[in-house]
């Protein structure tokens, strides 16, 4: 079934067309984005049950260009009577005296737009509303009970899931685009005590679609509990550089944090990335081909057009080890003289658009995981990444991973280290990749920030990879 468009957006559409016309009459360029995002978040644990709205938003943002200068105005409601006030608010912003002496203003030409009329929606099998809150919480409670019953050493077992459905309408002089999208995320977390510490294992689940995802969560309960119990015997990491096998989630974090942020082209505009100097050069092993794009995979960051009305792309960022291009929002493309790639994304209507990743991943290779492990003389198998931080200017990498399993003479020894910090110079790490497994998996339960804010839904992943990495 197709996701139905928001009744709110449908009702407001005539007003939005009038607003678009008023803005286009007043300024050199103007666009309107309307957003209606609904959702729910369910969570059960040993001591708590909750249901909340999750990340929802409803409102509008207009962007206008006049005499080379851009301004944006975000607001929550629109009526026929407030249309002139919106135009006046934008005019006031464009005329505002905000720059102290000595600071200048950047000048832009209007974007060239292809006339586009589009309406699209993603598919789902099971509507969250058809299941109902009680059924969803009952199913999560059943997962929790199974997890808690597995071992009395389990301190807590958390099962959560959320769905999010949004409709966006983008209007400019030449574009009239509507999309309706739904995705679901979920996960299970098992906690166990190790002296004064609490160790947690987490297995995520996510996808484009509806509540059919819940069935996939069942299989994660037992492995999650087993891993949490294993972590109670973990040791502190011995700092050093190791041959490592990364699971697809850890690969995803490396793809995203290590390289993805470095090819966001608003960073090129600011001279905050090394990547422009490496276009056409080897930055990774010839085994590596990297994609980003809202239509490059079906996951939580899949959409038909971005928040600036640019159609979704499948951008090949690295092709067999050679850096080909970056990813771009519209305003950065105007500055750089390049084509936007459908990566202009906002946290919500209330926030600015930046160049943001979508579904970011490495293509699979041809190796078998068991052969990859068998090839390691002494090293670590890394899994359960928890967070990462970018450093596009200096291509440093920081990824926090919860589990490093010791490999000795090609076999897992059962010895576990936790937590682990991955660091290094990104091209060194990517060039050290010597094997990639024959399947890729993407995961999209997380959000990506720009620095420490502007959270948007992304997915990332790839195959198991073998690389040389500094761990601490």
């Amino acid at each position: 079934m197709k996701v139905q468009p928001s009744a709110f957006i449908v009702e407001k559409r005539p007003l939005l067309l009038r607003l678009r016309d008023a803005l286009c009459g007043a300024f050199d360029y103007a666009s309107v984005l309307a957003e209606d995002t609904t959702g729910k978040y369910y969570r059960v644990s040993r001591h708590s049950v909750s249901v909340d709205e999750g990340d929802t938003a409803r409102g509008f943002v207009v962007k206008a260009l006049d005499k080379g200068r851009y301004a944006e105005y975000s607001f929550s409601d629109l009526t026929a009577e407030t249309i002139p006030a919106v135009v006046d608010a934008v005019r006031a912003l464009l005329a505002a005296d905000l720059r102290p002496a000595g600071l200048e203003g950047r000048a832009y030409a209007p974007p060239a737009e292809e006339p586009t009329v589009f309406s699209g929606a993603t598919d789902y099998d099971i509507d969250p509303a058809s299941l109902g809150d009680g059924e969803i919480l009952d199913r999560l409670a059943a997962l929790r009970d199974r997890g808690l019953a597995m071992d009395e050493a389990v301190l807590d077992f958390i099962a959560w899931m959320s769905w999010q459905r949004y409709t966006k309408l983008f209007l400019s002089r030449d574009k009239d685009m509507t999309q309706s999208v739904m995705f679901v995320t979920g996960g299970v977390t098992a906690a166990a005590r190790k002296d004064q510490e609490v160790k947690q294992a987490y297995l995520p689940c996510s996808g484009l679609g509806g509540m059919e995802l819940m069935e996939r969560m069942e299989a994660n309960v037992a492995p999650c509990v087993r891993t949490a119990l294993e972590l109670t015997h973990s040791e502190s990491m011995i700092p050093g550089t190791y041959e490592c096998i990364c699971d697809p989630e850890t690969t995803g974090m490396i793809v995203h944090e290590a390289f993805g942020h470095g090819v966001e082209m608003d960073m090129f505009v600011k001279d905050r990335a090394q990547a422009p100097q490496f276009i056409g050069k080897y930055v990774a092993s010839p085994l590596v081909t990297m994609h980003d794009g809202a239509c490059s995979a079906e996951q939580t960051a899949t959409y038909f057009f971005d928040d600036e009305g640019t159609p979704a792309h499948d951008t090949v960022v690295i092709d067999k080890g050679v850096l080909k291009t970056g990813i771009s929002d519209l305003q950065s493309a105007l500055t750089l003289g390049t084509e936007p790639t459908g990566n202009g994304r906002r946290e919500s209507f209330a926030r600015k658009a930046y160049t943001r990743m979508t579904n970011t991943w490495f293509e699979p290779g041809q190796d078998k995981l068991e052969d990859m492990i068998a090839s390691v003389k002494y090293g670590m198998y890394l899994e359960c990444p928890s967070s990462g931080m970018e450093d596009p200017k200096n291509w440093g990498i920081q990824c926090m991973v919860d589990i490093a399993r010791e490999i000795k003479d090609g076999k897992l020894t059962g010895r576990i280290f936790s937590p682990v910090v991955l660091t290094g110079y990104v091209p060194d790490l990517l060039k050290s990749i010597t094997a990639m497994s024959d399947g890729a998996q993407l995961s999209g339960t997380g959000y990506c920030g720009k620095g420490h804010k502007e959270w948007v839904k992304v997915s990332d992943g790839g195959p198991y990879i073998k690389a040389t990495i500094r761990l601490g």
Partner: protein
Amino acid sequence: MEKILSALDALGAEQYVITEKHTDSLETFYVKKALDLTRRADTAVTSVRVFRPFEKDGAKMLGEAEATVRPGMGEAEIRSVLERAWYAAQFAANPWYPLPAGVKEPAKADKGGFAGKPLAESMKAMTAALFAADTADDVFLNSAELFMRRRTTHVVTSQGADVSWEQYDVWGEYVCQCPAPVDVETYHQFNYRDPETDALTADAAHALALTRARAQAAAAPRTGTYSLVLDREQMRTLMGYYVGRSGAGMIYQKYSPFRLGENVHGPDAKGGLTMTLAATEPYTGFGAPMADLPLLDNGVLRAIHGGPRFAHYLGVAPTGEYRAVAMPAGTVPRSQLLAEPCLHAVSFSDFQMDPLSGHFGGELRLGFLYENGTVTPVTGGSVSGSILDCHDRMTFSAERYRSAVYDGPLAVRIEGVQVAGA
């Protein structure tokens, strides 16, 4: 508000918390010294939390769910979203707890230096303060984002609360760049409730100086165990261990072993940290007055903080949510904390503290290695430690540092921390 109250009455929802928030935010985005974009966000949203008492298996329960009411919603749509929340609340079956009483008071106006001034005027002054530090040729502001906000909050509850307040602040981020000898950058954030122009200029000057030092840092420190000195924003992150573990939810759910009246550093510890949770809002989310909360006294836990549910389960009074920490200064001058050998870590990619495990660490973007009579800038590698292992090996500076979320010692020296480096 009247439409919401009427719909709640029709549902028979007798317990609720209604929170109206309005934000007017003026925003500017700079690339080098050029204004790239001007934004204004004038947004409003109302959250309605409904609480539904019921019995399950003979036990008294209280379910809770949330609805969001948005400007422009008609009566029918408001009724619909509240009905859905009321329906959902019966499934969020948690043991019953009482909702805290609130107060009814006149609206509180912000008394800070931004209050009453046009946002544009304050924006211009704070922008000038930031760029006043940007005077050198070899190191400069690469980019900056400034957000000048006026926010109003109105809380009405079924338990008698009717309070509202306004808050002005400026927050933002900036990136410093030093192109030679190695082209590097550093990232910084700020947040002020008053027009502290001198403080912003000084912070930016400090940040630019650090960036110049990072450009000189050629190598990572050697792998090994170090006396580590942390300072400024890392102090609040580090202290997050004690704040996290003293939360009612963490204690009730047995994630935290902290107990009222016991020393958080362990049963055999003598003395320890003194810490107060500082109120940054005048009222709690339930419309009760919010005050500073003494948390630790020489290592002994004096309070548990958290919302009404877990507080009731633990038999303690509910508090509001705290994000700011205040601590007395230490006794050792910072210069002595930097006695060699030590690694002074001034900037991380993302310094983290996990209250569950006590682990802290991050990738080192800039540090200074004090050894053999020299001070060497270093970059790269990672710091990794556990506060459980080193809480009795922490020495705090006599100098103070203050930010929107921290007021306490400028720096701490921690003995025996692992560094993965060259």
